[in-house]
């Protein structure tokens, strides 16, 4: 395995880890509950590593993308339900990302939000149309590394490190009222959902097939999911911790996606602000493309159409049509005037409902020796896989009641 390939793979995973939902929920969680939810990010990141690694391994060995196995393992009816729910969830998420990019461009250039959202969507369409898969992934992933400014900013503002460290210990803060306890639980569930978004698995496993992964790529897969996702999640921890330090005491519970950029402006002024906005721009833009392509992958794999960015657009016409339609729909949602933050909230709630259905067939196939041979889940992957499966089922059951009881974490 080439070291350059490995480094690029890891860096791409780091830069592509954060999206608009994470920016919103981490900043709000830090402001509201200080460091008390850091452990949930760690917990969810390990879950993402477990299922991400599994999906990459299944793609490399069994050559099965997620939705192909979903239809075979869940049956047509339940598979179809999962497909529809995923399409809805990904389209809302894509709309939230397009709205987020529109806002960041508006804050960078001063031009109107609507023209910026339309222009961004046009750039996304051109990107997918013109660039091969690897370049799409790498361009946005690597440019998303500007997000590192959030981690540097955290060090610069010198938070109380001892207090910050206690956040890594699972806890329920003492003295919370019943309402606060519900809101704390809502944020915990939302963080699990935002970190373990199902589109990430669809995109990752389809990408592995696009790049023709085989047995030789299992090391790259493991390192990308463990080191890449691990370092990526440090950025989200930094956003939460800076928010605890800067926004909480100021009474700010970020209501606008652009607010997070202030975290870098406080220690580094205009340069920090610019780097933060650029990082947010590319990270969110990458997520917009991923969510859109995830829908095209899902639908094509489910119905057995020709798919992939390795094919020219006219060689996979239905696949091409789907991603174009998804962008148009997502842009249409943004143009109705719904706040991107509200879209991110809905996306997170809908996504957590889809997670159990997404991960069950993956877990079953990754443990099946007839497909996976000696690469089937060992006892560690099996134990972690089922433990996390139980966790996301509980989170999925709790998500909707918590969303309603806390008015989306606002109470």
């Amino acid at each position, binding site marked *: 395995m080439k070291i350059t390939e490995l480094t690029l793979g890891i860096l791409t995973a780091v830069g592509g880890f954060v999206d608009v939902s994470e920016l919103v929920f981490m900043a709000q969680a830090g402001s509201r509950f200080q460091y008390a939810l850091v452990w949930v990010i760690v917990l969810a990141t390990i879950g993402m590593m477990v299922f991400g690694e599994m999906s990459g391994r299944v793609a490399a060995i069994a050559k099965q993308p997620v939705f192909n196995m979903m239809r075979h393992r869940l*049956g047509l*009816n*339940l598979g179809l*339900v999962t497909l*529809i*729910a995923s399409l809805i969830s990904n389209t809302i998420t894509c709309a939230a990302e397009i709205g987020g990019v529109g*806002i960041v461009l*508006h*804050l*960078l*250039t*001063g031009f109107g939000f609507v023209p910026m959202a339309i222009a961004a969507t046009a750039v996304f369409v051109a990107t997918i149309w013109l660039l091969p898969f690897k370049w799409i992934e790498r361009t946005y992933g690597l440019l998303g590394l500007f997000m590192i400014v959030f981690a540097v900013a955290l060090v610069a503002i010198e938070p109380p490190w001892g207090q910050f460290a206690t956040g890594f210990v699972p806890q329920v803060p003492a003295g919370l009222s019943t309402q606060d306890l519900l809101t704390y639980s809502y944020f915990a569930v939302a963080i699990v959902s935002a970190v373990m978004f199902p589109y990430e698995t669809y995109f990752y496993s389809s990408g592995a097939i696009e790049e023709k992964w085989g047995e030789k790529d299992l090391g790259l897969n493991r390192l990308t999911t463990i080191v890449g996702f691990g370092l990526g999640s440090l950025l989200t921890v930094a956003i939460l911790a800076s928010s605890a330090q800067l*926004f909480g005491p*100021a*009474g*700010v*519970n*970020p*209501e*606008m996606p*652009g*607010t997070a*950029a*202030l975290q870098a*402006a*406080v220690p580094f*002024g*205009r340069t920090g*602000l*610019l780097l933060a*906005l650029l990082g947010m721009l590319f990270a969110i833009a990458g997520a917009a493309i991923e969510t859109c392509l995830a829908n095209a992958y899902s639908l094509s794999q489910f119905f057995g159409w020709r798919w992939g960015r390795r094919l020219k657009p006219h060689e996979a016409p239905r696949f091409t049509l789907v991603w174009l339609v998804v962008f148009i729909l997502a842009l249409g949602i943004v143009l109705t005037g719904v*706040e991107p933050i*509200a879209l991110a909230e*809905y996306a997170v*709630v*809908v996504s957590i*409902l889809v997670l159990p259905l997404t991960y069950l067939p993956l877990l079953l196939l990754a443990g099946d020796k007839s497909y996976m041979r000696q690469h089937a889940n060992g006892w560690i992957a099996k134990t972690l896989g089922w433990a996390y499966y139980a966790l996301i089922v509980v989170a999925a059951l709790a998500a*909707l009641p918590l*969303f*309603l009881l806390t*008015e*989306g974490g*606002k*109470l």
Partner: protein
Amino acid sequence: MDSGVPARAIMVVALLIAGGCGQVSSDLATIKTARSLAAERALVARLNAQSKLRPAYSKGMQRGAVQQLVAARSQLSQPDGRAGRAIGAVAALPDDAGPLRLGAHRLAAVEAQRENH
């Protein structure tokens, strides 16, 4: 598996989500949002006065917050009540950190009063 079961289940969940998404926020949630927006405006104004922000960012954030404050006021059950007037006052303030911070404190007081009732 009976195809009706998942279909019914997804319909129920979809209706719940649609209901949840479409629900009108309670006055308390709206006041909390407005209080935070006022505090965000104050923070942006303070950092802008320290020349730490780019003009496009500062203007965009202030304009966005004002629009959301105006929308928040209209969502209240009584837009011309005490909370509504306080939100309207914060929305009308210039981009000046001091008055905006006071406005945020006023909204925090309204919020505390609602929470105690």
